[in-house]
């Protein structure tokens, strides 16, 4: 439904976005994820029409948006600062965009009331911006945009200004709202947890380019590059080299991990290529005694442990590795027998499919 083709954007000599192509389907909750300055907000603003493109095309439902100014585009935006008009009441704020539709005042107010119910702020119509909390303002901004029945709703870091508890609560509400209303949502965020929680699809961006577009699970479990892998969640990286002794078999000699077998068919890289093996902390199993007959074993000593409530994160010094290896162990019982101590010798095992092989660069 929203089609972004080879879009670029230049500010003076600074290339903010280079050759980005994204397709967003109708009804999807799509997120643009990346660190500050990666160009995600610029891209969103180009969809909304506040920035012109320096190359490429943006199409909404097949209509090219090249010469269409923001007030003629069939999408609406929720701004990072919410931009609630201070001189208008909540009701007039929400009804703002309805002026051009020839509706009677009572019909307009009816629609506003419906919206207020939807965002769970019934009866707030006569209040003003300064009387609202951050979370309430955010909802009013949502209502103001949704009442326009946009083809897509664009959200620019809408939850950034809220504290953690409120943010988590709003995330769930936002997800529920999107599902019930069925509108395409395009969200910009730098918080990967947020993106994972809310989205059907995520585009990870860095330095003006798209690194990977995938579902949350796809990004988490099969990242295509080291940049993406490191961005989403915590990841251990082991440098290594590919060796293909026979056409049907492949191995990787990696630091720390030792020699591991990998599926020769699925492996892209050629013999002798430098790779990085990525392993999630929770896919490593920690044992206090050497395992009996496991193929994949690493030995090491515990450097430090972080107690994180629902789990413990151990940092293990493994031979041949400069960086400690992170191992995540859920706390299924109260502090007790299975707790591992600092300096204790431990053995780490993992299953074959836990490894993700990425290019070294």
């Amino acid at each position: 439904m929203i089609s972004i083709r080879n879009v670029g954007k230049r500010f003076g000599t600074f290339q903010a976005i280079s050759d980005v192509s994204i397709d967003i389907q109708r009804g999807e909750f799509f997120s643009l994820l990346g660190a500050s300055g990666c160009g995600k907000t610029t891209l969103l603003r180009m969809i909304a029409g506040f920035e012109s493109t320096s190359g490429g095309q943006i199409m909404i439902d097949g209509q090219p948006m090249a010469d269409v100014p923001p007030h003629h585009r069939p999408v609406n935006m929720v701004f990072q600062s919410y931009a609630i008009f201070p001189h208008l009441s909540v009701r007039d704020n929400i009804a703002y965009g309805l002026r051009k539709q020839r509706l009677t005042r009572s019909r307009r107010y009816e629609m506003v009331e419906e919206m207020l119910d939807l965002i769970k702020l019934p009866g707030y119509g006569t209040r003003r911006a300064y009387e609202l909390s951050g979370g309430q303002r955010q909802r009013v901004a949502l209502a103001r945009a949704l009442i326009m029945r946009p083809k897509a709703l664009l959200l620019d870091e809408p939850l950034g200004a809220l504290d953690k508890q409120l943010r988590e609560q709003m995330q769930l509400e936002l997800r529920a709202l999107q599902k019930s209303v069925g509108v395409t949502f395009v969200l910009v965020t730098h918080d990967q947890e947020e993106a994972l929680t809310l989205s059907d699809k995520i585009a990870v961006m860095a330095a003006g380019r798209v690194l990977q577009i995938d579902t949350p699970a796809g990004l988490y479990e099969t990242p295509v590059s080291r940049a993406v892998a490191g961005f989403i969640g915590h990841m251990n990286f082991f440098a290594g080299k590919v060796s293909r002794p026979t056409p049907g078999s492949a191995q990787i000699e990696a630091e720390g991990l030792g020699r591991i077998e990998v599926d020769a068919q699925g492996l892209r890289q050629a013999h002798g290529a430098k790779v990085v093996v990525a392993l999630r902390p929770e896919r490593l199993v920690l044992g206090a005694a050497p395992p009996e007959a496991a193929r994949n074993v690493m030995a090491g000593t515990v450097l430090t442990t972080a107690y994180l409530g629902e789990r413990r994160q151990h940092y293990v010094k493994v031979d041949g590795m400069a960086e400690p290896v992170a191992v995540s162990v859920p706390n299924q019982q109260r502090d007790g027998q299975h707790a591992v101590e600092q300096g204790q010798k431990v053995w780490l095992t993992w299953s074959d499919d836990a490894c993700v092989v990425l290019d070294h660069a």
Partner: protein
Amino acid sequence: MKPGTYISQPNTSLRLYAVVFMLFIYLPLLILPVFSFNSGLYVRFPLEGFTFNWYLALLNREPVFAALGNSIRVGLTVSILSTVIAVFAAKAIARNRLPGSGPIVGVIMLPLVVPGIIFGVALLVLMSRLGVPLSLYTVTLGHIVVCLPFAIATLLPRFEGFDLSMEEASADLGENGWITFWRITFPIVAPGIVASLLMCFTISFDEFIMAFFLGGTHATLPMYIWGQLRFPTQFPSMLALSSLIILTSFIVIFLSLWIGRIGLPKSAQSGIFK
């Protein structure tokens, strides 16, 4: 320990200084009203008697009303024109990343620093080369030069403190540039506009140097007073007139500065003088 944080504890001698300073600033101006009620012809102690005569005498003087009318007409025109130009200019400067806006603003703000006589003389030269006769129109032009920097300085903080997203939100919701201006920008900037109108009017009303060079025979109120000051016997009536002008200026400017601070975030309140 006295109350208050350690760093800013009150200091009696400094306070005394502050009081004396304020007296120094205000007393000379208050001399004018005090002696305007004095029945003696000369401005000196001892005060002779209380009288309204000098004020009443003003009512009979035709030239006073003519000059007053001129000043008001010029003042209104100047304040409206300056404010309108300044609104658009302030919006352009605060919003759009314009290359060269720094030097441009510098040139516009020049009249704040450079002696007025230079601009007065320069405009005089231009008008005479173009063959334009000196009149209230030329005075208006001169006053716009002087007022525009103040107008822009009053409006600029207001635009800078104004979330850009507001106008974008309005555009996003379907309104074009012009409608957005009226529905969103204007109401939010309104206090600044009022402040600018009041301030420009007062500046123009009080302004002497440009009027002197560019007014020719059409006198504004300050020019009229200047002419009368050659005659010491006219002093008391001029005291009365001056007192009225000062009072009006005080009130209007106070209003302007007060309104100009409505709804402005704390950081922007130091205004022009950065």
